[in-house]
């Protein structure tokens, strides 16, 4: 990776930290510790399940929200503040700017997820008083959540490269929702015939499939995740993020910034 990309990525990370993005960790810690105590008192025998389900769901939702709301402003904010022209007047290629922004945001989310993961494991130890081998599956779920973030980041950047922040947020969030229903979309496509079927199937494969990344419920019951799924999800996330980033670069390279 070129030094220029690393600089842009580290600046993006610093900017996110300065924007108090990591403050969400406080809300997360309060939510998790509150839930660990509350559910122990008002429910029966699900304290550990709640910590895993709520912890990982929060990691995912907080991360997606951060990815969307920071990602949509990464390009447009630089144009609005005119800082982009300063950056591009130096020997920085437009594609390096986009890729650097992507890695900066992804890095922010990975650091955020790392601290949240510590919170999940601390809460788990608090309710269970010990760790068992099945708890290591939480790491797989966290890995899948990070893969999900990579896709969301790349989509936010894609929309941010040609659209206003508000519209980018709407587009990215809509794709996140649609992507959560991707398997249903394929089911609907299979019910149609002819050209409609072809179009529906194409649309179903074009939107990101987020449902395959969600293994929270199964790992909370200690059910193992197939190694093949880990490899496939990794490949899929990398390919999809590359596709969306390429789109962003394509648009940004040809955009008239005057």
């Amino acid at each position, binding site marked *: 990776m070129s030094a220029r990309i690393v600089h842009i990525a580290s600046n993006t990370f610093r900017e996110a930290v300065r924007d108090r993005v990591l403050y969400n960790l406080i809300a997360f810690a309060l939510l998790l510790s509150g839930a660990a105590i509350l*559910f122990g008192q*008002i*429910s*029966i*025998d*699900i304290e550990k*399940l*709640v910590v*895993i*389900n*709520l912890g990982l*769901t929060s990691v*995912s*939702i907080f991360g997606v929200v951060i990815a969307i709301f920071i990602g949509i402003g990464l390009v447009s904010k630089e144009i609005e503040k005119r800082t982009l022209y300063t950056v591009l007047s130096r020997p920085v290629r437009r594609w390096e700017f986009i890729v650097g922004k992507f890695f900066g945001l992804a890095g922010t989310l990975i650091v955020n997820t790392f601290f949240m993961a510590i919170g999940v494991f601390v809460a788990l130890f608090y309710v269970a008083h010990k760790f068992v081998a099945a708890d290591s599956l939480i790491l797989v779920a966290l890995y899948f959540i990070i893969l999900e973030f990579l896709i969301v980041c790349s989509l936010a950047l894609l929309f941010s490269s040609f659209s206003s922040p508000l519209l980018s947020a709407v587009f990215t969030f809509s794709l996140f*929702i649609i992507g*959560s*229903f991707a398997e*249903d979309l394929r089911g609907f496509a299979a019910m149609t015939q002819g050209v409609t079927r072809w179009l529906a199937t194409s649309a179903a494969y074009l939107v990101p499939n*987020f*449902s395959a990344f*969600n293994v*929270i*419920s*199964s790992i*909370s*019951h200690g*059910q193992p995740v197939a190694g093949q799924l880990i490899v496939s999800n990794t490949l899929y996330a990398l390919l999809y993020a590359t596709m969306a980033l390429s789109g962003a670069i394509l648009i940004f390279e040809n955009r008239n910034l005057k």
Partner: protein
Amino acid sequence: MKQRRATSISAAICLVAALAASDAVLHHVDQIRPQATLEDALYVSSPKVLRRASLGYDGLLADIYWTRAVQYFGRKHHDGSSNYNLLAPLLDLTTQLDPHLVVAYEFGANFLAPAPPNGAGQPERAIQLITFGIQNNPDEWRLYYNLGFVYYIELKDYRRAGELFERGSRVPNAHPFLKVLAAQMAQHAGEYETARMLWSATYETAQDANIRANAMEHLRALRVDEDVNQLQAAVTRFGHRTGRLPASMQELAAAEGIPGIPVDPNGEAYKLMPDGRIEVRHPDDFTFITRGLRPGYKAPPPRFHTQK
């Protein structure tokens, strides 16, 4: 600078005062329309819709619905209600959202099966619930045990209960007592003896303190029921032998060779009534007893002595 500080202090005071006042007003509004916050409602009754709406986070939603079911049952149970209309739908939603949430089948069936006020009095819904649980978790021996439990305790179907205990005993890592239970069902062993074994097994294998306390209450009640039955039989024998009722518990104990005055699990002596009935001194202390109650006695809502 001073003026800004004064403004800040005033704003802080205003904030606290307004917050306290708005809470007081809201409290008043709640009193005017109490049904608004206490009304039972199941806004979404379709598990499929809920699953879709959860965007894949169905595990957390199942935990929330399970907690709702526990709270719903607890509230109705506390009020001594005989209407548990939402309990079965809440449990269905919970288990459809997370078919591997074994705890919801185990304890959900215990909420559904017993007759009011101890439960919803819906053993057939309890059977449906655990049957769905077994379909999704065929390796959970506890579910076969719970289903057999419902057939035995609520429906008195010893043959079916025996079959289920037998099936459960074949599941890998099943508790050995399932084989014993299956054998007891086959022999039609004494009802108290089998019931005691079932509740003892629940007490020993449950993790939750409330469930253990519930099992302990049943065990205490079984002992009282059995004691009262035996003492009542002794009174009958005394009557046949002497042609009159015993004048006191001491006379009955001496005539029947019972060492000392018989006492309940709390150490209180059983009462011999003038008409020859045996009564428990403090029936409120034994939630689930069916014998030794004074005529017309109405049990209070159950309360458990939680044991860790």
